[in-house]
């Protein structure tokens, strides 16, 4: 293990311990409610970047995966009262399958066509769920949270901890991909798919793999949301706002490094929480859109890129 990864795992463990301590010490429920959403966006943004950042395929279907995660959990809970871990695992499996299907779409589509196809997928799945009576149809469905289990005296605290676990998992996977041949292959096909194919990069397999991993993580991140909200309806579970938020977080943070989406999600997620509480949820989407456009135009490499450039300048100044 390199020094880098040792410090990563120490950091991850410290993070989880801190989260666990938080659930034991803080009595007020609000920090968990707000923190949960931020952690959820961290997972989604990191997962999005695996396909969107490394491979350069802009996926507008984040909300499709998120919604599928939510509804997998809803279905399992209603049909079998399945525990949370089962809900998340099943959602990840469904997400992987959906990611596989999406990966096959990339066979023939690139650029804008792929992006439009992911929107299409979202709406089609949303419409199907809307017409599925068992999980509530268009009207939505109410769910009753079970009581918290040890060591958590409250279910929301547990969800908060579970989402923190997913954050660590997602980042670990993204780190691994970035450092391995998979990441380099994705990078190559992002720069020039034809050239990559010619030099022996298995582009199709890599793209499908990226779709599968990204999809599984997004669905897993969505699964606990059913229990978190105690309610699910198609138009909010599949809301395109998730897609634009996650897209904005990833691009604003910067997609060249796994830390980019993390930084972006924490920054924007926190801002969103503050804005939603203090002003309104419309203004919060507006701020998100404006930030997205500004960053895409002015700082295409995102915050990570800005930091790197600043570092280079300082080093350049010394010599």
């Amino acid at each position, binding site marked *: 293990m390199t020094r880098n990864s040792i410090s990563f795992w120490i950091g991850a463990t410290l993070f989880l311990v801190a989260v666990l301590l938080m659930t034991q010490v803080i009595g007020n429920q609000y920090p968990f409610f707000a923190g949960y959403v931020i952690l959820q966006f961290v997972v989604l943004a990191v997962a999005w970047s695996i396909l969107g950042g490394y491979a350069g395929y*802009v996926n507008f279907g984040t909300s499709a995966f998120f919604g599928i995660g939510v509804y997998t959990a809803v279905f399992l809970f209603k049909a079998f009262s399945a525990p949370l871990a089962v809900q998340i695992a099943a959602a990840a499996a469904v997400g992987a399958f959906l990611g596989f299907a999406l990966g096959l779409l990339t066979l023939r*589509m690139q650029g804008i066509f792929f*992006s439009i*196809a992911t929107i299409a*997928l979202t709406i089609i799945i949303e*419409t199907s769920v809307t017409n599925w009576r068992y999980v509530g149809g268009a009207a939505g469905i109410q769910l009753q949270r079970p009581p918290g289990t040890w060591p958590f005296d409250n279910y929301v605290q547990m969800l908060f901890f579970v989402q923190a676990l997913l954050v660590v998992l997602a980042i670990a996977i993204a780190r691994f991909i970035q450092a391995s041949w998979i990441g380099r292959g994705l990078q190559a096909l992002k720069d020039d798919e034809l050239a990559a194919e010619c030099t022996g990069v298995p582009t199709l397999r890599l793209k499908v793999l990226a779709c599968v991993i990204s999809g599984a993580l997004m669905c897993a991140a969505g699964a606990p949301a059913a229990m978190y909200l105690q309610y699910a309806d198609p138009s909010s579970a599949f809301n395109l706002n998730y897609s634009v938020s996650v897209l904005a977080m990833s691009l604003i943070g910067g997609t060249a490094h796994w830390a980019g989406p993390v930084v972006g999600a924490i920054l924007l997620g926190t801002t969103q929480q503050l804005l939603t509480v203090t002003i309104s949820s*419309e203004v919060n989407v507006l701020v998100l*859109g404006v930030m997205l*456009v500004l960053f895409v135009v002015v700082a295409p490499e995102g915050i990570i890129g800005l930091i790197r450039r600043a570092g280079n300048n300082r080093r350049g100044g010394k010599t």
Partner: protein
Amino acid sequence: MDLLLDAVVIGVLLGCFYAAVSLGLSVSFGLLDVPHVAHPAFLVMASYAVYFLNDRFGIDPLLAGLLITPLLFLFGLVAYRLYYETFEKRGSDAGVRGIAFFFGIAFIIEVLLILQFGVDQRSVTASYIGKAWRIGDMRIPFRLVVAFAVAALLTILLTLYLSRTFMGRAIRAVAQDQEALRLMGANPIRIKQWAFGIATAVLGVAGALLIIVAPVEPTLDRTYIGRTFCVVVMAGLGSMTGTLIAAIILGVAETIVLTLFGASWAPAISFAMLLGVLAVRPQGLFGRRS
């Protein structure tokens, strides 16, 4: 059987209307290759401008659509310039960020409309809205007929413009071979900017039709992403006649599914057809590219 015939007739009328709202995209995306995801948002914005003029000053919606056309043209010029300076000129990685850029713009427009007009549905008033024609048992809403007539006129005008006028031919030339145009001493960027202006200007009347046919709400653009891109991709990028035919196919398919399965499946039809076309025949039915 009567029901089916009804559906087909309404579908054809509706289809022409879909053609009208897709024409702009057919130029901007089909001919210029701009990943214009914000096209439907521009369209809804135009509808709200028409609503505002109609509600405040009682101007006829179609006239209002014509009135805002020059403004939209200027808006299109500025939008393309911004897009060109920030993405096309720099070249690398324009794909990802260009799409994100237009997606962001679409959301900004949506939210601004919500903040200004609220989330409620808005509609316009005019003498031809609400009446219907009766032919035998068939009942054809008059607003659809108006939309049909105006849409057909718009399509013909734009087709003529692109095939008969100097600027129109230049636009098609720039779509075919930008480098060749540069070698002929023409400035392809200026032509593309002009074309994008035209593509946006057409939205004035199209937006008027949108709000004549049915009430609009700020998030309506999401549904129309499916409809407009379905039409343009099915038409084969950049073909105006193809746009009309593809739009009619979509319109008929939508009304038939509506009649048979109910309204709750409606949003998925255009997206499903879009996916189908992309998967099976990406060059579209009347494609200019092999």
